[in-house]
Every structure is written in C-alpha cells, then in structure tokens.
C-alpha cells in the first residue's frame, strides 16, 4: 500500500468511529504508531506520518511530540518532506516554542536554494511564524530576494518583509529603498505586495511617510490603469479589474493624503473617477467604492467630492443587500460628527433599518440614530426609538435606554415630554436603566412644578399596575410621598384624575413595602414616603404610626434605623414633624414662591445630627437657570448637562453636601496675579467684574467677581448667563452667595465658554440678589471681553 493512502485510510477510520471514546482509542493507537515510526530510522514514510499527526492535531488532540520531527523534515533534502515539515512547523511551532529557533538555519539555507519552490516554503514559514530573532537574522536575505529574483519570489519576499517590519519595526529602514523600486513592476502579485509593504512602512515611520508622498503620482497612474483597462481574464472579478489591488492602493493613498494638501489634491480627480466609473452591482465593485468613500472622507478632499461620497453611502443604505447596508451605516457613523447635515438627509432610511431583522444591522442603526438626534427631530426620532425599545434584543437594551436618556436630557422640547419619555422607558425597560436614572428623574420632577399633579397621577397609576420594576417603583414612591396631597385632592388639569382614598394610597405603599420583589432600597423609599404622608393626609395618621413602629424591629438594618427615627419623630419631636417633612425645596432656586427654600434647607441641616434626613437638594444653579436665559436670546442651544446633584437616602447618610461643595470651591480658587478686569455692572453698591483667565481659538475661561460696598451684606446672590446659539456655556458653582459688606469679601464664579464655530462672543448676564431685604434683578450685556494677561 502506498503510504499516502494510509493517511486517508486513517482519516476514514477515525471518521468511522461512532463514539468519542472509540475515536480517542483509534487516535491513541495511531499516535503510538507514529511515535514509534519517528524513533526509527528513515524509511520514506516520515512525511506521511507527520501529515497524520497534523490531522490528529486539527481534531484537537495534543501533538507536541511531532515538533522535533518537523525540524528534522525541514532539514531533509527532499521536497515533499520539506513541504510537510514546513507545514508542520507553521501548525505546531510558534515563536514561543524553543524548537522554532532550530529551524532558523534550515530556513536560511533554503532561502538560497536553487529551486524557487523551496525558497517559497522558507519565505512562507518565516512570514507566518518568524520570531523577532529569526527576523533580525534573516532580514538581509529577504532584502536581497526583494531586489534580484523572479516575480514569484519577489511577491513572497515582500509579504515576508511586511511580517518582519511588524515584528521588528526598526528594520523598516532596511526595506525602504527596495520597496520604492517595486512599484514599477508589472506583475500584480508583486505590486500588491509592494503596496502592502509601503503601507506598513508609512504607518510606522512618519519620515518614510514623507518620502513616499512623492510616489503618489505613480500610484495614481497604476490605479488609473486598473480602472480604465479592458477585460483581463486573469484579474477580473465581476467586471472590476483586480479589486484587491485597487482597494490596497486606495488605502495607501488614504494614508499618504491624510493631513496633506498637495497629496490630497493629486488624488482628487482619481477618486472622482473611481467613484463614478465603478459598477457596484456586485460585492467586488461595492468593496472598491467603499474604500474610495473611506479615503475621500479621511483626506482633505474638496467639498464636491465629499458630497459625492455621502451620496454613495446613501445609495448603499437603500441597497437590498444587508451587508452593504451594514457597511454604509458603519461609515456614516464615522462621519456623522463632521458632516452632520449630510447624514441627516438619510435619517429616514436609517430609522427604517431599526426595524431590520438582523441584529448587527439593528445595532448599527441604533448607534447612528442616537448620533443623529437633534433639537429639530427629537419628537419624531424619539417615537421611533421608543418603538424600537419595546422590541429590541436584550443585549441592546441598556445601550438604548442610556442613549434615549442622553438625547432627552439634551433636546427635550418640554418638561412634560421629558417626564413622559422617561416614564415610558421605565415602564418598558426599567430593569436595564442606569443607576443615576432615579435621582435624575426625581430632580427633573421637582423642577417641573406645574406638572407635579400630573406626574404623581401618572406614577400612581403605574405603581398600582406593576411593582416589579425597581427604578419606576422608587420614583413613584418618592412622588407619592412628596405630592400625595395633590393625588388625594382628586383634581388634575393635564390628565384624568384618580379618585383615591387615603387608604388606597397607603395600601399601595404597603404593598411595595411587603413585596418580596422590592429591593431594600425600594423599601426604604416606600417607608420614607409613608412617613412623609403623615403630614399630608388627615385621617390615617395612626395607620402610618403603626406601619412605622412595625418596621422598628425589621431585620434590615437600614429600614430598622429609619423606622426607629421616624417613631421618635412621632413621639418626642412631634412639634417638628411638620417642618421636617414639608415639601422638598425645588432645585431651581430662582423660581418664585420658593425663596424660603434656603431656610428649609437650613432647618434640615440643623436637624442633621439627630434625624436621618431625606435627600438634600444641592443648589443646581447652572443648568435650569441658563435654560431660562437661553429662551431670552431666542435660541435653543443645547443646555449644558445638568449634573446629578441628588444623593438618595438609599445610598447612605447625606451630609450637608451643599456646604461641602462651597468649601471645596474656596480651596480651588486660583490665586494668580490679577489680570485686567472689566466692570460690567455697578448698581446699589454691588459691582460685578469680569476677567478672562484663559483664551484659545475655540473657547475661553472667564471669572466673574462680585463685590459689595454697602453697609450690609448682600445675600442670595445668583448669576445666570446666556450665550449665542452655537457657543457652549458651563458655569461652575459660585464661591458663595453672600457678599460681605464694606468690600470685605467677594464672590467669584468661573464660566467656561466653548466656541467651536468661532462666532463673535457675546454674553448676557442676569444678576439677582437681596440687598437690605430688597430683591434686585438686573441684566447686562457683555459684547467684548478683555484679553487675558500672561
């Protein structure tokens, strides 16, 4: 029997094994036979034995005892043994094995072999698994082969050089001269290898990149030749002549043209030609077009070309082939920041892709839709996103919810819409939302004062429907505790009011308290809400007392502590109960009717040592007040992100964080030599100065300083600012809100302005303060800013 049949015989036997155990037995026997054969003297069957071992290895069985045999076979003068030996080396040896060093010498000898096929074996193995030492040793050989050999060897030497450069980047300089001359070859294989090598060299070394920019005209010529050439049977794929080479050249042109005007200009025509002439009905053509689009977007191409590229992507979006739609969305994602308007035109198609069956396409469509959200399309786009959320695959839900929240925060057209959206998300996918959602939503609800009634009605309905979604339940409990009186009143303008009795509300809260589905944090919310209701309802205070005293012996330490403290509130401190449990101060300090927000906050702070307080609300000046002023300017620029200011009781004791922050700020004030400052407002003894701390092309940092020359201190100082539409504003927290009298102290506030479109900066500042029990409010316009001093 001829040996090679025995290999196939063995494969047949192994495949015939009916169970895993039988297969293992067969393989063990064969491996033993192979090992024995390896130990024997050469009998002409070594290569077949190694081949059998390689088959066994592919099935997943250990084959390390074949490594030395590979080394021996590689050293053999026979071609078929070398061939299998090298194959074995590529499969069994890698640079981590010691045996791989032993083949270095064989490779070296074979690189100078008279037969090109032996040379090619050595090149292939070196290019596949050569370690750094081997590469260093053999690099000069490879360089020699790059220059003086036939095209069959040249192309292999080129890719081997690529591997060497990847392993030992310093050797790149060795190959640079040879690779330049390879560009004049006619053979496509060599040309392709040369382009890959040059790409690798340019990516690793900026100087080499500079050098090869001179080769751009040559590359353009080659590319033109490919595009305009007639049918070539050897290289033709679906009507495109050698798409593999075309794509590689385009990729190299991208790297050479990036950030360089001259190179980019040189390729503009070519790219336009390729974009218009390439037939994209089959994948090969689409691949070339895709690479062209990537190149156009990455270099400094002219705007007409960019528009053409985006249109190509738009065409791809309408293609029936899912792969092409996927590719198009990936590319649009890359350019959505820079060419936002162009991508917006295709929004409809992208949103349709959300409904695609394929999970990869859905994911891409989601990313792109979230990137396309803007103030103009927020309502319609949010409808689509919410629809998507109800049917989206589970692995995408968390990402979708956080994307929706971000979009809602930035572009919400009204507070009611914002609250509705968040509630919708919580009911649909409440289990997949971020942790900060609950405090964020609560903060939002408190600011929407007109909507308290509406909100509490909606939340109550949601609560009695389903108490399994923790985030929703927590918010609902908080609201019911806070605004329970509005709920019980039974009237509401915005929505159908519920007619509930106090008992119903308490039942709902008690259900949450007792349910095994509620997490400890949720139960904490429910208990606190029940307690708060004691000041908002009239008849069932005793019921509340009994609930609270029951939980005084709860196993959960947090609940127990709360219950005990609330009990104390009932028994010993009943006179304070109303004050402690009154309505939470709204975060928006400037809204009328809440000037005693400070005092309520103050009283809570005093009680701190004896009572566990509820959420202390930080003065959240920047975000919501700026929203007001932005309306004044008639624009609807993006309101800066409101930072989550609430710390919930669920997370632990709440110290007077408001005071803490102020103290931090005083520590953070810069003490620099005084740059020139401009007085922007002076009235009633209050002076407001502006100085520029830092100024760049696209932004500046300014500090507003307020001083007081009157006899009495100025209190409740707030500064609000508004800027033109495209400018982004961020106001840091002020150093305080009380200006001592007689100029003995000052209040400072830092403002960061980001002006990416470099419009002329103007700012309107509203100053609000209480002086001698008189509330003053003024607005000043600042048209020019002083230059910073350095």
């Amino acid at each position, binding site marked *: 029997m001829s040996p090679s049949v025995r290999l196939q015989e063995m494969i047949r036997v192994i495949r015939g094994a009916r169970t895993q155990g039988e297969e293992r037995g067969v393989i063990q026997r064969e491996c033993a036979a192979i090992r024995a054969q390896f130990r024997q003297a050469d009998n002409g069957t070594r290569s077949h034995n190694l081949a059998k071992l390689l088959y066994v290895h592919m099935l*997943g069985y250990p084959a390390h005892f074949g490594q030395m045999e590979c080394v021996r076979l590689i050293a053999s003068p026979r071609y078929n043994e070398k061939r299998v030996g090298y194959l074995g080396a590529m499969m069994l040896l890698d640079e981590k094995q010691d045996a791989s060093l032993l083949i270095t010498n064989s490779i070296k000898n074979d690189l100078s072999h008279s037969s090109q096929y032996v040379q090619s074996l050595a090149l*292939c193995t070196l290019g596949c698994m050569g370690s750094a030492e081997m590469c260093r040793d053999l690099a000069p050989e490879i360089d020699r082969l790059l220059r003086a050999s036939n095209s069959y060897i040249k192309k292999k030497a080129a890719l081997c050089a690529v591997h060497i450069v990847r392993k030992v980047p310093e050797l790149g300089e060795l190959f640079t001269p040879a690779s330049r001359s390879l560009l004049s070859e006619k053979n496509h294989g060599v040309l392709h290898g040369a382009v890959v090598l040059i790409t690798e060299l340019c990516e690793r070394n900026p100087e080499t990149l500079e050098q090869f920019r001179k080769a751009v005209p040559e590359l353009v010529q080659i590319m033109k030749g490919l595009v305009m050439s007639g049918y070539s049977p050897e290289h033709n794929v679906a009507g495109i002549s050698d798409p593999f080479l075309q794509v590689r050249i385009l990729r190299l042109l991208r790297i050479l043209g990036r950030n360089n005007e001259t190179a980019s200009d040189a390729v503009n025509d070519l790219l336009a030609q390729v974009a218009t002439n390439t037939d994209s009905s089959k994948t090969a053509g689409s691949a070339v077009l895709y690479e062209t689009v990537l190149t156009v977007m990455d270099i400094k191409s002219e705007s007409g070309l960019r528009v053409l590229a985006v249109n190509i992507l738009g065409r791809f979006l309408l293609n029936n082939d899912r792969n092409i739609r996927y590719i198009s969305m990936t590319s649009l994602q890359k350019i959505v920041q820079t060419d936002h308007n162009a991508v917006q035109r295709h929004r409809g198609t992208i949103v349709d892709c959300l409904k695609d069956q394929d999970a990869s396409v859905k994911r891409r469509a989601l990313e792109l839709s979230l990137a396309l959200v803007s103030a103009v399309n927020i309502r319609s786009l949010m409808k689509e996103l919410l629809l998507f959320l109800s049917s989206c695959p589970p692995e995408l839900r968390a990402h979708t919810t956080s994307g929706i929240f971000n979009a809602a925060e930035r572009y919400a057209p009204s507070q009611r819409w914002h609250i509705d959206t968040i509630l919708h998300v919580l009911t649909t996918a409440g289990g997949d939302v971020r942790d900060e959602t609950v405090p964020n939503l609560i903060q939002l609800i408190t600011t929407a004062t007109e909507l308290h009634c509406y909100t509490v009605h909606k939340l109550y309905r949601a609560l009695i429907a389903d108490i399994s979604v923790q985030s929703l339940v927590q918010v609902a409990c908080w609201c019911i505790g806070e605004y329970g009186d509005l709920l019980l009143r039974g009237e509401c303008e915005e929505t159908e009011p519920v007619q509930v009795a106090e008992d119903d509300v308490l039942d709902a809260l008690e259900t949450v308290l007792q349910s095994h589905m509620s997490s400890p944090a949720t139960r904490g919310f429910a208990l606190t809400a029940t307690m708060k209701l004691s000041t908002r309802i009239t008849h069932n205070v005793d019921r509340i007392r009994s609930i609270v005293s029951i939980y005084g012996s709860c196993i959960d330490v947090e609940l127990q502590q709360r219950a005990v403290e609330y009990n104390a509130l009932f028994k010993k401190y009943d006179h304070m109960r109303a004050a402690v449990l009154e309505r939470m101060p709204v975060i928006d300090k400037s809204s009328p009717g809440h000037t005693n927000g400070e005092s309520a906050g103050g009283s809570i702070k005093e009680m701190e040592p004896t009572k566990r307080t509820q959420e202390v609300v930080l003065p959240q000046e920047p975000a919501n007040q700026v929203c007001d002023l932005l309306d004044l300017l008639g624009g609807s620029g993006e309101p800066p992100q409101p930072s989550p200011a609430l710390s919930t009781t669920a997370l632990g004791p709440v110290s007077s964080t408001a005071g803490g922050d102020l103290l931090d700020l005083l520590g953070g004030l810069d003490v620099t030599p005084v740059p020139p400052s401009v007085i922007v407002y002076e009235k009633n003894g209050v002076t407001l100065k502006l100085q520029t701390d830092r100024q760049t092309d696209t932004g500046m940092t300014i500090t507003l300083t307020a001083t007081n020359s009157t006899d009495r201190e100025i209190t409740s100082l707030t500064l609000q600012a508004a800027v033109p539409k495209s400018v982004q504003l961020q106001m840091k927290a002020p150093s305080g809100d009380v200006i001592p009298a007689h100029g003995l102290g000052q209040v400072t506030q830092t403002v960061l302005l980001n002006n990416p479109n470099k419009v002329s900066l103007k700012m309107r500042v509203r100053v609000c303060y209480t002086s001698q029990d008189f509330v003053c409010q003024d607005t000043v316009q600042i048209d020019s800013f002083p230059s910073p001093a350095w």
Partner: protein
Amino acid sequence: MLRFLLLFSRQGKLRLQKWFTPVTEREKKKVIREMTLMVLARPPCSCNFLHWRDLKIVYKRYASLYFCCGLEDQDNELLTLEVLHRYVELLDKYFGNVCELDIIFNFEKAYFILDEFLMGGEILETSKTAVGIAMEEAETLQETMEEYMSKPTY
C-alpha cells in the same frame, strides 16, 4: 491583516485553521469555540459581519462549510468576502467541484493552496491562474522526489 481563518462544518467540526499571529493553544481553542458558537447561531439570511472583542468577523457559508475570518479595524469587510470567495474558487479549480470531503481527506493540499494565496494575513497573489500554476509545478517537483525515495537522508 487577517488574524485567523477557520473552516468548520455545520456541526462545529474544525476542517482548517490558519493563524496569522502567535496564539497559545489554549487561546486558539477558546477562539475556535467562540467563533463556532457565534457563527452557527446566526439565522440564515443575516448580515455576514459581526463584531467580537476588538475584531471584525466576516463569515460565509458554502454548502456545508463555514468560512470564518477575523479582521482588524482598517480592513475592508466587503473585500474579505471576495477573498473568501476567491479561496473557494481556487479549491474548486484544484479539486474539481470541491466538497467538504475533499478538504477533509486532502487537508494538507488545502493548506498548500492557502499558502499560495495568503501570507502573513495579507493577499499574496491576485491572479486566478497563478496559484493553480504554482500548485501544479510544485506537484511535479513532489513526484520526482518520490521516485528517488530509496535514498535515505541521514
């Protein structure tokens, strides 16, 4: 560059593996397992592209074999589909109407063809005919050698 190329059957049996970067045996097994799980779980008419760790995965099914490869960020996925198709064409030309059994029983030939087409994760030869010619010439070299098998090496 391609990081790896795997061929496996509908039952998840590996028929060919080519790794273009040094990978430990354990890691190889892990990757193979994850690839087979991911690709075999895909419904029939899905997109051929996936995302896994930091790689793009391109796969295509030809009859009973799945061809699956891992790409780096800069690589062109559509072109890789063409690469896979070209490899299948080369196998078809060499074996004459190739089927899975051909690749099972002549796996070393499949590797040799692959080594004439790809090297170091990059395309080596773009001409359809050149690979076939190289294989033929290497075969003649092999036969001549086998005739002189009687001479021992050492």
